[in-house]
């Protein structure tokens, strides 16, 4: 199973589903990371975490631990 965490910088992927439940799942999806949408991985922070992605036309940052919840194609 591939997750957003595994996508290299510069790569992109379509979201299959967001794992977890409750606040964990909902907060990520509220930001626009939902089934079928394209997420581009832009960069990693200087210290290796969090990562910056581009989704639905804007820049979003999330921790790698949370990116691992996002299953991608």
């Amino acid at each position, binding site marked *: 199973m591939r997750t957003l965490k595994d996508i290299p910088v510069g790569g992109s992927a379509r979201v299959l*589903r*967001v794992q977890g*439940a*409750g*606040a*964990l*799942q*909902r*907060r*990520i*999806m*509220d*930001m*626009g990371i*939902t*089934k*079928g*949408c394209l997420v581009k991985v*832009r*960069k*990693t*922070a*200087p*210290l*290796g*975490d*969090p990562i*910056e992605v*581009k989704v*639905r*036309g*804007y*820049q*979003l*940052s*999330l*921790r790698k631990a*949370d990116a691992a*919840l996002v299953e991608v194609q």
Partner: protein
Amino acid sequence: MAHSSDTPLKIALVGNPNSGKTTLFNALTGSSQHVGNWPGVTVDKKEGRARQGGREATVIDLPGVYSLAPYTSEEVVTRDYLVIEEPDVIINIIDATNIERNLYLSTQLLDIGVPQVIALNMMDLVRKHGDEVDIEGLSSELGVPVVEISALRGTGLQQLLQQAFEAADEGIPPFFNRKFSYRVEDALAKIAKIIYGAVPPEHLRWYAIKFFERDERIWAGAALDAEHKRQEDYTAHRALLGQIEGIVAGCEAQLDDTAPSIITGESYDFVERVIARTVNRTVEERTTSEKIDAVVTHRLFGLPLFVVLIFAIYYVSVTLVGGIVTGFMNHTFIGHWIQEPLMSALTRGGAAVWLRSLIVDGIIGGVGAVISFIPQMIVLFLLLALLEDCGYMSRIAFLLDRVFRRFGMSGRSFIPLLISTGCGVPAIMSARTIEQESERRMTILTATFMPCSAKLPLIALIAGVVFGGVWWVAPSAYFLGITSVVLSGLILKKLKRFKSKISPFVLELPAYHWPTARNVALSVWDRISSFVKKAFTIILLLSIAVWFLSRFGFEGGSFVMVSSLDHSLVAHIGDLFAWVFIPLGFGNWRATIASLLGFTAKEQIVSVIGILTSGQGVRTSAPSVLALFGGQKVAGYAFMAFNLLCIPCVVAVSTMISEMKSRSWALFTLAYQLSWSYAVALMIYQFGMLMVTGRFGVGTIAAVVVLAGMLFALLRPASKAPEDKTTPGVVLS
């Protein structure tokens, strides 16, 4: 629910963070706004008045949110206000440059069924890219008026208000008929049938959706069978909830997804369809913000750039302005321009000695010491507000999150720690931006370990007078502060107390834009005014109390205004507590009193030492100060460490209590800060004495025990996090 025209309308302003909501609020209400707090949560409540065509409305600036989910206090405040308090009309501000995510919130707002108007902001930027939005089309897709505005330039505001007034007068809910997929609509219809009559009819669809999402707050708060609930017979109510659970679970099984995920996914799908029909956009590979970020958050240059920027801010506000202006304020402005003329005027007017002393030394001396810091704080807050308004703050959080997470904090904790080197009060307040409760509390608890500007005189006294100006003493004070923050974070994050429900760190990196003078000015004013308010209330009262205790006492068997501090009430109090500090090397009443009075304001420490060692003025000789510490420099250093790390001044403490929103957390914080400072000072003195004089005693053993305990707390495994409650229990209060 059309609005009657004699009471002022209530307009709720709702939108995403960074959508220009604050700018719009400032533009609509001008200087008529006031800030408060939503009861029970640390979220700002802003209200102001807007006028249009001879009518007046109250504008309520609701906290910026991405969703109306029940998970952050901002979300809860916003939806409770919209659904329970029911404004007459909602103005939903949308950042047209980020229309997709902004419209997602709109779908939830439209479901609520309150009359509303959409304010489409930043269309000028959209056009600059060569993109276009079909405003008429958007309006008919969403079933509400859409008005193009520029919050920054103030255009379109009159039209916006007019539309809002009309919508409120007519009281017609949005004509919003978006449909979820067939199976979801089927489930919603069944749920609506069950809850019909138990929820306000105008919010029926909103409640049906929330029941479908298994929204914890809605499930727990609902009374589906009001009649029986009153008789404390929940059977019927439980049976109904059971039916709903069956419907939701059935739909989840059919669609192979969780209910909240189904609703969120389909809402974004709906937004995508609307955008496809109404927005004409050219896909841009790299936006201007991303180009700026290519440097600002660069893997190699990002951190050095950040360090240079922070150093510059710190240098300008604390060293340049702080050093020059604060000294001027203290000595020249307060001392020569206010205290001296006032003293001679009072003397000429024949005021009694005690009255002159109360006004000049007690009140003006006490309040003035705090007021002196205002220029430097204005500069610091001004520079920070510029960074905040342009969008750099979230980049700092991005750069530093990794570091702070290790200490149980978040990237957003940096700002409170930075402000804390100026003053702990605004620092504690600025921790509000940290979403996760445990990270916010950890930040508040550790922020005041940083030496604030009121502690600088103490550092200067110890470095200059006790250590004869050795270079390393002053920097070591900052080192001590930072180390305390880091070690405390490492120790405390293992406690169960600091394990809150897991929530993700999702941080928008908003598009950069030029800061606006008005937003920056209002932000500085917000912070400064609360500080000034405290100076004239709490500090004023305490200054009078301290003055009384140090000027009165028993001399020659009667209670009089004392001629020597040795006889004052404060000296007796000092004697009472001095034994506590014997293991720290300064167990005499003078040093004790200086520390105790430090709680009123940390500047007091140095002025008290000044008064107690020489009898007049702050200028003190090295031998007399050293005598306080039994001639041991190490004791002087322990004294400094204790006072730097100990419980902050009473103003900061009262801020901490109100921001913690919990007595148990406030007490825990105070107890921890007290124990930490005592433990550190104990180790410094005992190990210091061991190295300098070779003295080994009971105190040394105690210090070894404390050190071992600290190491154990650092290295022990963490306690487990509480289980995340995923499915809400059907519990009724």
